[in-house]
């Protein structure tokens, strides 16, 4: 491990004492049950003043740990075993407690992943923001005035009333602005953001990122941004470092990294995400076999050797050197010049014909919840249908009703009177418990969170066997055989069958969940954000799996996701939901080519783009309306930049067919409908 320090110093990064942040050979370990386990294995990088530096990597690579280490915040069982952190010339690792407090109060600030948890639920917002100023020495009333000014600075609507509110009364996006306001209190020179927008809706995320960008320009502070969403990194950062297993494996400018990666891991990551308008009919997604080594594993040579497609004997015996590739650019690999030989995977599925007939149809489906005496219409008159073998992507933000739609179709909730859900043309009962066996069997679900979706007390075999015996007429030995076949189709090895869910990784658990969904030979499978909780490389494998199975079994999917790249990749048709209503539905390419509904346009433009296209962002004013109190007329008119006064706020918009099976619910005439700005492979040569 010490050898790397020698090669690290060969790189000329610039004077560490003038850097906004200089991490130098940082080694960090957690003590678990008495033994220290290495988390960071010698991380070195610099963030120059005014620069935005991104750290990417999958879960467990140590990027968040590095961010917290920069502020010297370690968990009680963590210890820095080697290296140091300098910030603006100050030695953070060696500071006294008092100096550290001062450092955190005025020199550096942090923005957290979960703003809801980051605020004290028992104190008012104003008090918590004013606290930052009190720490700097201001008196009570001065602190309150400055707190109010901070809230205005982060563009919170009605800051005075927000000061009096409690955290539970604000949305995630607003709370994140408050956290940013608190961070700016001391005029910091370094801003550390740990996954600041994970968990926020796309439109809200875009606004928060805009805010960060504006503030960065205003204050000229340096930014260290941690994210696993590569689109966020690309749009926000000047330079990027890729981390794997506690080590940085590549560093480059944002553009260089995304266009021309030079480390096998980076290439694996880039090829695993659906980019540049990739569709499933173009090719499969690249996957990285295996798992990231766990914390504490001994990794004497190349950290990536066990999963690298171009690894040789040399990689197993010698520590890979740092290969400089230009100004501020390097990669840690023995074979950096051979990375272009890493092949793209083949075409995934031969194009097949989606069936003509509708398997499942929803006609005028509504669902209203009663809560504390209020009526909350979560779904309003939804019309949707699935053909055999088709993937229908469902996109929408919080409160759009996507999950409710899925659950109503499945029969977890009973829809309101007047709704009709048919299977092969025959209407089904609302609740799953009332449906006939064939209907129950026909529609199954893959849940978002496999920890919640699999019974922790059961073995995998039992989970699958029970599903088979419940849903199919098979019993006994025949059922066992079916279970083994399914497991094999999902690439689960036989010894996985006898394990319990907690012994499996996230990706494997999700495979089990998918296996269970398919165990009964369903006609339609609802996938509710099945890959949101998974790392990019694992997600790729799952998406490939889903596409393959669909081709073999001709199952239809209702695929719910917030990831536009994924939905473009996998879906044949897309439906866009807003406040319980379908605003648009059509074939995927038709939607991405345009014309589209104004909301769709805003949604597509809000997504941080991995491909570096400077798309004009459509800012959406205001918050998503609550389903309990929808705006009159078109529900979107309060935020729509094309809204026609007198029409959109009064009349319900019609469903207009703008192309084959492409329906847009809008008052605007066809020629005025917007076209989204995106990029596809055919355009980029």
């Amino acid at each position: 491990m010490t050898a790397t320090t020698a090669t690290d110093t060969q790189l000329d990064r610039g004077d560490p004492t003038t850097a906004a942040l200089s991490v130098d050979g940082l080694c960090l370990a957690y003590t678990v049950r008495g033994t220290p386990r290495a988390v960071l294995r010698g991380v070195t990088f610099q963030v120059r003043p005014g620069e935005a530096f991104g750290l990417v990597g999958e879960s467990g690579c140590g990027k968040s740990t590095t961010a917290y280490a920069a502020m010297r915040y370690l968990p009680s069982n963590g210890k820095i075993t080697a290296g140091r952190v300098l910030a603006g010339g100050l030695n953070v690792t060696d500071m006294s407690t008092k100096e550290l407090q001062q450092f955190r109060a005025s020199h550096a600030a942090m923005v957290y992943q979960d703003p809801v948890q980051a605020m004290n639920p028992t104190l008012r917002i104003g008090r918590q923001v004013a606290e930052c100023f009190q720490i700097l020495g201001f008196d009570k009333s001065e602190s309150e005035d400055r707190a109010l000014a901070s809230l205005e600075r982060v563009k919170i609507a009605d800051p005075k009333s927000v000061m009096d509110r409690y955290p539970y009364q604000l949305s995630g996006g607003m709370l994140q602005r408050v956290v940013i306001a608190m961070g700016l209190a001391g005029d910091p020179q370094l801003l550390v953001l740990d996954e600041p927008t994970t968990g926020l809706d796309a439109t809200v995320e875009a606004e928060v990122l805009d805010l960060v960008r504006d503030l960065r320009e205003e204050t000229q502070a340096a930014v260290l941004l941690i994210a696993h969403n590569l689109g966020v990194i690309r749009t926000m950062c000047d330079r990027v470092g890729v981390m794997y297993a506690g080590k940085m494996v590549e560093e480059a400018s944002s553009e260089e990294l995304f266009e021309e990666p030079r480390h096998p891991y980076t290439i694996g990551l880039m090829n695993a995400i659906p980019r540049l308008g990739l569709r499933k009919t173009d090719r499969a997604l690249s996957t990285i076999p295996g798992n990231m080594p766990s914390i504490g594993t001994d990794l004497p040579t190349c950290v990536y050797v066990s999963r690298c497609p171009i690894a040789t004997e040399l990689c197993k015996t010698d520590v890979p050197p740092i290969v400089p590739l230009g100004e501020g650019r390097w990669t840690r690999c023995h074979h950096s010049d051979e990375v272009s030989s890493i092949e793209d995977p083949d075409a995934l599925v031969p194009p097949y014909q989606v069936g003509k007939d509708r398997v499942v149809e929803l006609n005028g489906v509504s669902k209203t919840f009663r809560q504390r005496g209020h009526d909350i219409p979560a779904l309003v008159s939804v019309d949707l249908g699935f053909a055999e073998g088709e993937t229908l992507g469902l996109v929408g933000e919080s409160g759009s009703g996507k999950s409710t739609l899925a659950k109503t179709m499945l029969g977890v909730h009973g829809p309101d009177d007047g709704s009709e859900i048919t299977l092969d043309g025959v209407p089904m009962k609302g609740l799953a418990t009332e449906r006939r066996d064939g209907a129950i069997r026909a529609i199954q679900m893959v849940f978002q969170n496999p920890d919640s979706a699999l019974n922790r007390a059961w073995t995998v075999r039992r989970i699958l066997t029970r599903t088979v015996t419940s849903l199919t007429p098979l019993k006994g030995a025949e059922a066992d055989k079916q279970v083994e076949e399914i497991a094999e189709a999902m690439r689960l090895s036989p010894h996985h069958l006898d394990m319990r869910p907690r012994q499996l990784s996230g990706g494997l658990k999700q495979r089990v969940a998918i296996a269970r969904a398919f165990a009964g030979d369903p006609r339609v499978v609802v996938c509710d954000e099945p890959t949101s909780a998974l790392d990019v490389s694992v997600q790729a494998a799952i998406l490939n799996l889903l596409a393959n199975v669909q081709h073999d079994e001709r199952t239809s999917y209702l695929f719910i996701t917030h990831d536009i790249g994924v939905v473009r990749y996998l879906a044949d048709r897309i439906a866009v939901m807003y406040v319980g209503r379908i605003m648009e539905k059509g074939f995927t390419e038709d939607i991405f080519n345009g014309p589209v509904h104004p909301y769709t346009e805003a949604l597509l433009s809000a997504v941080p783009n991995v491909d570096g296209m400077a798309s004009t962002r459509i800012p959406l004013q205001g918050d998503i309306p609550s389903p309990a109190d929808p705006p009159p007329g078109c529900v979107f008119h309060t935020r729509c930049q094309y809204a026609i006064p007198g029409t959109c706020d009064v009349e319900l918009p019609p469903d207009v067919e703008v192309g084959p099976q492409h329906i847009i619910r809008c008052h605007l005439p066809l020629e005025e409908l917007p076209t989204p700005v995106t990029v596809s492979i055919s355009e980029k040569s």
Partner: protein
Amino acid sequence: MLRYIARRLALSLITLFLILLIVFSLTRVFPSEPARQLAGPFASEERVEQLTENLGLDDPLPTQFGRLVRDVVTLDFGESFSQPGVRVLDLIRPALWNSAKLVILSLLLVLPISIFGGIMAARKKDTLLDRSIVSFGLASASIPDFVSGVLLQFLIGVKLGWLPAVSNAPDDAGLLTGIKFILLPALAILFVYFGYIARITRAGAIGAFEADYTRTAYMKGMSSSKVIRKHVLRNALQPTVAVTGTQMGYLFGGLIGLEVVFNYNGLGGLIFRAATAPDFPLLQAAVLSVAIIFMLSTLAADLIIAWMNPRARLDLGDD
């Protein structure tokens, strides 16, 4: 908020009604005949029958229950069976006051010590101090109140002679003397409750220490003591408040063993004597008092928690 209190009180009435029903049923199933007990072993059959009729004990059960409900509503519980001519309320009042005195002194001892211990244990989690506090608390909490009462009585009351071994303070005793006389039973209660309250506080404090908002406070550059004072305490003590509220019923009416050992006229002993006499009016009234105290204390605890944690107010009907 007012709506919540009203709703809680209404629900409490239902529960009180159920309690009354339970107590009533139990007493009417007694094989003994209170009239016979009252009349004495030498009374004639007619005398007993006469007494039974006077006391209304031969009326149909629903009538008797109705009478009980009326008594409760008018707060007139009539006269005691075991001490004829003495009004029930006059028996309850001094016992209630005695129990209250003991409870107040006990809480003044228990709460500060246990809360401090719990927070210390949480701060130095998994160190020797933490483990000692938890183990000691576990051990002392396991001992029945009368057992620790007897042990304390022996050690401190008799062997060392520092405090009076029996709690029979003279009627004109001043505050300090009064405290001296009930200090031993209060210490017994301290033993019993320290472990429980300290562990609950510890759990709450650990949760607060490990919470994101505490991390935020540290990241603002706040010193440790300020973080604890301003951010941790408010969140850490909520479970403690909740638990203290639920224990009031026991503290007022369940310390029978302790009251016997120290010869203290508290509510628990009163109920015990009323149950064994049997003295129905006294028993019903005393049990009801305990139940009402429980209702009020849990309501108070919930309100305090709502004050401490604004999000809890959501459940209380605040929109």
